[in-house]
């Protein structure tokens, strides 16, 4: 990947002492980790552990109280606007307008990102997610699985380097999961991924790096190769008992 603004061997994600507090409540407490380019990070943790907050900070939607986070060397606070062009988000929420057609939705977001070859790009992505035959249909008529595919297309419009996945599997039926997985496999090699997951098995299967958060703190952070799965599961189970605040 050739990127003029970042050194050749830059870390994709670099988080240092990230803290997010409001009053006495600590959503994130001195979170630090690194993620190399092309890696796939799965973030596990019980509800209220700070997973969503972490992703919100990394996607520039919330500012950290202390510490720093850089993505490809771009600071989430100082270089927020530049950074936004290089990240995409696939959420469990489709983030699409139900009263616009599939094509109109993608065209709209392409405009927002200032994509130059918008028409071609939209066509190309719609074909890639196998929705080209439904491109004129309103999004409100789409099934959950179709929404999620369109959502992938939306997040790829501006050719992001890092893709954030916020529980993308929630609400998908097995068939939709299959399609989603095959799409993910296609784009896997081209992006760095950060995924929030409740599904331990799925999350571990996809990832190259894993991270467990509990009460805003990093409980475990390691490359998958160094992880003993039983031990990992035990650690994860232990957090579920205490982490819910």
């Amino acid at each position, binding site marked *: 990947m050739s990127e003029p603004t970042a050194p050749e061997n830059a870390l994709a994600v670099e988080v240092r002492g990230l803290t997010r507090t*409001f*009053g*006495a*409540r600590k959503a994130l407490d001195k979170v630090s980790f690194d993620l190399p380019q092309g890696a796939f990070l799965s973030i596990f943790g019980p509800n209220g552990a700070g997973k969503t907050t972490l992703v919100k900070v990394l996607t520039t939607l919330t500012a950290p109280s202390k510490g720093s986070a850089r993505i490809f060397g771009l600071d989430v606070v100082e270089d927020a606007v530049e950074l936004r062009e290089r990240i995409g988000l696939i959420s469990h929420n489709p983030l699409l307008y139900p009263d616009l057609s599939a094509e109109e939705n993608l065209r709209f977001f392409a405009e927002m990102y200032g994509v130059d070859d918008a028409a071609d790009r939209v066509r190309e992505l719609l074909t890639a997610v196998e929705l080209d035959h439904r491109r004129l249909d309103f999004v409100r008529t789409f099934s959950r699985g179709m929404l999620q595919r369109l959502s992938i297309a939306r997040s790829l419009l501006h050719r992001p380097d890092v893709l954030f996945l916020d529980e993308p599997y929630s609400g998908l039926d097995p068939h939709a999961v299959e399609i989603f997985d095959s799409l993910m496999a296609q784009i896997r090699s081209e992006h760095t991924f950060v995924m929030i997951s409740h599904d331990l098995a799925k999350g571990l299967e996809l990832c190259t790096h894993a991270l467990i958060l509990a009460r805003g703190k990093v409980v475990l952070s390691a490359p998958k190769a160094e992880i003993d799965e039983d031990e990992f599961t035990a650690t994860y189970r232990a957090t579920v008992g205490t982490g819910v*605040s």
Partner: protein
Amino acid sequence: MKQLRVALVMLVIGGLLTTVAFVMAFTTAEVQRFGTVTLSERIDTAFPLQEVTADGYRYERPWFSQKIFYFHVPVAEASFLVFGVAAFFAIRFLMTKRKEYDTKSRIAMETAIVFVTLTMITGILWTRAAWGVWWEWEPRLTTYFIMTLMMIGYFVLRNSIEDEERRAVYASVFGIIAFINAPISFFITRLIPSNHPVVFQSGFATSNLVPFILGQIGMLLVGYAIYSIRMNEERLEERVEIMKEALEG
């Protein structure tokens, strides 16, 4: 705890000062006159006889309801000041995103709503005494009414948001915009002809000024005391929360 004691002392001093002002308003303060009254006979009274006309004896009419001024205006001015403090802390909060400023802003707004309510009540009683009606859509009353509604709106907004941080941000934003709006409504209502009195046209006589200033200082002390006591309560509550969490976790 020391802070609480200071607040209590201030509350007592403020109470004493306003009471002194009240007593002085009826004893040492010069009686304000509001027009004249013509009686058919000459009477023996403290109110000076102005002139003798064909209709009868013209006396200056004592303006008893004006005595409300000595505590109505201090409360009103204190309420504006506290509202300003609330807006100031709201700005501080948006700049720093520190929760304590939001708490301060909220407590100030609460103090302001207490004072605004009191101003409304004393104002309404004065309107009844001086003009013979309970309510009139007149600039100051109207502005006050609108201000009260905005403050109620502030708390309605707070109560309808779950997320603590979002609640703080939204409340601050509304607090600031409401504070900007208050003088605009005042200014705009003013352009409609009004009969709200400008109480001392001829300037303050010392005998009037003393009780007024005492009342004003007293009321500000009371306001600060209330704010301070409420802040104390808030801090205590936070401590209880933290302790509970520590015990449970």
